[in-house]
């Protein structure tokens, strides 16, 4: 699908957990799972916890957003099948601005926090996150909202439009 090695982009504020580890890696035949997040990259505990969930046989990248941008643009993952996991659409916008080709961005879970608005069952966004999604859409990126590969194709923009 993508020439830079990224075959699936997922936004999930719980990063890698049951659903991602089990379903998506099998469904897309991933060879590498990448978490691009500044907090995680700086936190040894988080990194070891995440390494726990990387399915056996997959390589992992637990790096900051900037490192991810640099690596992807340098072609480090060409030929691989990378699932890119981001904590927030804000990070997706950063990657887009950094020159990374994202293709389709799927949203998994965004939990209820202070100031969030409910878009869809598992997806709750702050004003900033809503803006970020709109920016991604404006850049031509398709936004889906599939919790598990089994689910029907669900366009996130439909839910965003319903809000207005």
């Amino acid at each position, binding site marked *: 699908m993508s020439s830079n090695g990224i075959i699936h982009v997922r936004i999930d504020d*719980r990063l890698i957990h049951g659903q991602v580890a089990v379903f998506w890696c099998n469904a897309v035949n991933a060879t590498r799972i*990448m978490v691009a997040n500044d907090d995680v*990259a700086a936190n040894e505990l988080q990194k070891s916890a995440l390494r726990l969930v990387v399915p056996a046989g997959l*390589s*992992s990248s637990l790096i900051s957003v900037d490192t991810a941008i640099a690596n992807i643009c340098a072609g480090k993952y060409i030929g691989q099948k990378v699932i890119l996991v981001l904590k927030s659409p804000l990070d997706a916008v950063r990657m887009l601005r950094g020159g990374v080709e994202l293709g389709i961005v799927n949203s998994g879970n965004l939990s209820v926090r202070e100031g969030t608005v409910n878009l869809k069952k598992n997806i709750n966004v702050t004003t900033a996150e809503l803006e970020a999604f709109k920016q991604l859409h404006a850049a031509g990126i398709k936004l889906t909202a599939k*919790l*598990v590969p089994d689910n029907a194709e669900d366009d996130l923009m439909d839910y965003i439009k319903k809000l207005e």
Partner: protein
Amino acid sequence: MQIALWQVLALSLYAFLAINDIIHMDLGLNRPLFAGFFAGLVMGDIGLGLAIGATLQLMVLGVATFGGSSMPDFMSAALIGTALSVIANEGMEFGIGLAVPVGMLLIQLDVFARFINTFIQHRADAYTEKCELKKIERIHLLGLFTWGLSRALPVAICLIFGNEITQTLTNIMPAWLMSGLKVAGGLLPAVGIAILLKYLPTKKYIPYMLFGFLLAAYLKIPMLGIAIAGVAFAILVFGRSGKQAAVVGSLANEGGMDEDE
């Protein structure tokens, strides 16, 4: 036969406890296999209960409510299917034919129960503002009833009207449907197995699956024996991964491609 009140109560109570079991200790009560066994015990036909429970169980091997998703309620379905089969004096195909659609419809009740608990959450939010600890505890525990009733009520209703339901069904069910359902009972485990193969690292370890198939299909080795073979393979793989980890460890320091930091 007429279902007795104690049987209705026993099965409804079981359903109430079973759902609260799987979200906590998970002793196994909520598994279709257990439910089928219990229903068979209560209704006086353990073999039937086991057969229905096992078939339903095979359809949800490895399926679970990951991250709060919902799945078919084959526990309640096993209770209802077994009980109504005994009432109607029918065989396993009747039970399965009933249980599968019922289990799938009951997904909605699971969603509903989880949704109703939102009201509990909002009450609790208010109590935290005032630090009313006892009230928080009480409202939280109320959830046990949302869960419990979401399973116990449908079971109770189906059992209380069991005679009417089975009468209607036996009257309208043509013979070809019954034989079709018998076939379905034999084929449906394939769905559970296929779903499972999507969750497990099948492509990576397909040789082991082939070997298990070989042992069962050609050599007719019983399941426990195959489990032993599986354990042997597991030990081999575990040992091998230990050696691999040591190698990768030394490579990573040299900037190997495997791990990115």
